[in-house]
């Protein structure tokens, strides 16, 4: 009888232990959502590529990086403060709505996505938090899977940096397997807009309505 009791206690303790380890994992992927692996049909593709592309599972930030989060980053990394940043890494509009280097001021809301940041800055932030920028394919795939866009009026005219935002030699693909219920569908007008917008960017541009979020792979 006693042995049974001990067994049950061990089981209980183990269960509690496991669940607390589960929490650790959740905490490490802070406010991130799992995007399961699968096939993505690129809106554009290069000649040699077959139309479908396999995307490995990854975690993506649930929301774009906020002003508050970005403020922590510039506090810890002085070279990314507005007055310190090099023109080669961010143009003159960098963080222009902030009151000063470390003061958001009254007009910029701390919980809103940070904008007016360059591609280099977005990359540096993601690296700093141990993540990276998503590729175009990952971003579009996640957008499709999670409906992370179009669900809020705030985000209708909001764009996000991607790691390979202006890759070259892309040509419109006409067919992408299956029934065409994907981004290759011409009715996906926002996706076309995003692609043309991305191609108009340069990496040191800092603009209104252009923010970012980070991703991590799954190890």
């Amino acid at each position, binding site marked *: 009888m*006693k042995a049974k009791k*001990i067994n049950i*206690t*061990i089981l209980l*303790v*183990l269960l*509690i*232990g496991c669940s*607390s*380890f589960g*929490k*650790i994992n959740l*905490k*490490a992927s*802070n406010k991130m959502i799992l995007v399961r692996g699968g096939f993505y049909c690129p809106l554009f593709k*290069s000649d*040699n*590529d*077959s139309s479908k592309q396999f995307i490995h599972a990854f975690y993506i930030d649930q929301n774009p990086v906020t002003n508050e989060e970005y403020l922590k980053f510039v506090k*810890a*990394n*002085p*070279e990314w403060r507005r007055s*310190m940043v*090099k*023109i*080669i*890494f961010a143009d003159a509009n960098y963080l222009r709505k902030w009151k000063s280097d470390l003061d958001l001021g009254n007009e910029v809301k701390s919980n809103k996505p940070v904008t007016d940041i360059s*591609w*280099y800055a977005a*990359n540096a932030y993601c*690296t*700093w*938090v*141990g993540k*990276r920028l998503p590729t175009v394919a990952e971003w579009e795939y996640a957008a499709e899977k999670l409906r992370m866009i179009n669900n809020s009026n705030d985000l209708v005219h909001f764009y996000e940096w991607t*790691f*390979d935002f*202006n*890759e*070259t*030699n*892309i040509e419109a693909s006409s067919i992408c397997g299956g029934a065409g219920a994907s981004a290759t569908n011409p009715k996906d007008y926002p996706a076309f807009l995003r692609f043309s917008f991305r191609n108009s960017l*340069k*990496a*040191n541009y800092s603009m209104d309505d252009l923010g970012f979020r980070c991703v991590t792979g799954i190890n």
Partner: protein
Amino acid sequence: MKKYILVSLPLIIIIIAGTFIYETNKVRSSNKETTSREIQIDERSSIGNNTKLADSCCKELTPGRYSDASIYQLESVWKNQFGKKIKLNSFLGKKVILAMFYTRCPTACLVIVNELQRLQAAIPQKYLDNYRFVLVSIDSKRDTPEILKKYADERNLNPGIWTLVTGSKYQIAELAQIIGFKYKENRSGMFTHSNLITFINQKGEIQNQSEGLNQNVNMLSSMLYK
């Protein structure tokens, strides 16, 4: 009862260890690797202030010799064809002719390298040391220093003048963005890419660029002397 204590003791230790890991994780996610980051920040801010930089891999720089628009603001560390770590600013003071390429590239990169070789031949011997030819590989997965070395040897690229470098996917993308070089790897492991020769002045500022293949050497050398 004794048995009970014996069993439960290790379990309590496990729980304590679990909580400890949980807490450290919490600290990490909020404060993000403070120690290693601080070191990096120190290094970066010293560069930002253009103070002297004594780096294990790179020679010392004289303060204020490059501007905010200089590609030598890039701090990424590359590996050259001898496996030695270098920063781009080790070319400070030289006129640099830079091209991005990859060794398995079937045609276009060879044409570019040939052009650069013809360009080198057009420079009078006594001025040659004022110039450096830099080939940056875009194939970080496959182009190891050994492969770069082999590539350089096969083409008789003088190691005193020619540097071939390889780096991480990110630092390649970063440099490509700065010089406006576009590339994309397809699934067969080949790249589609711009054909771009970039002329960089002694301070690391982009002076001129030539896009496209089979440029006239006279035209290219006119860029050299601008």
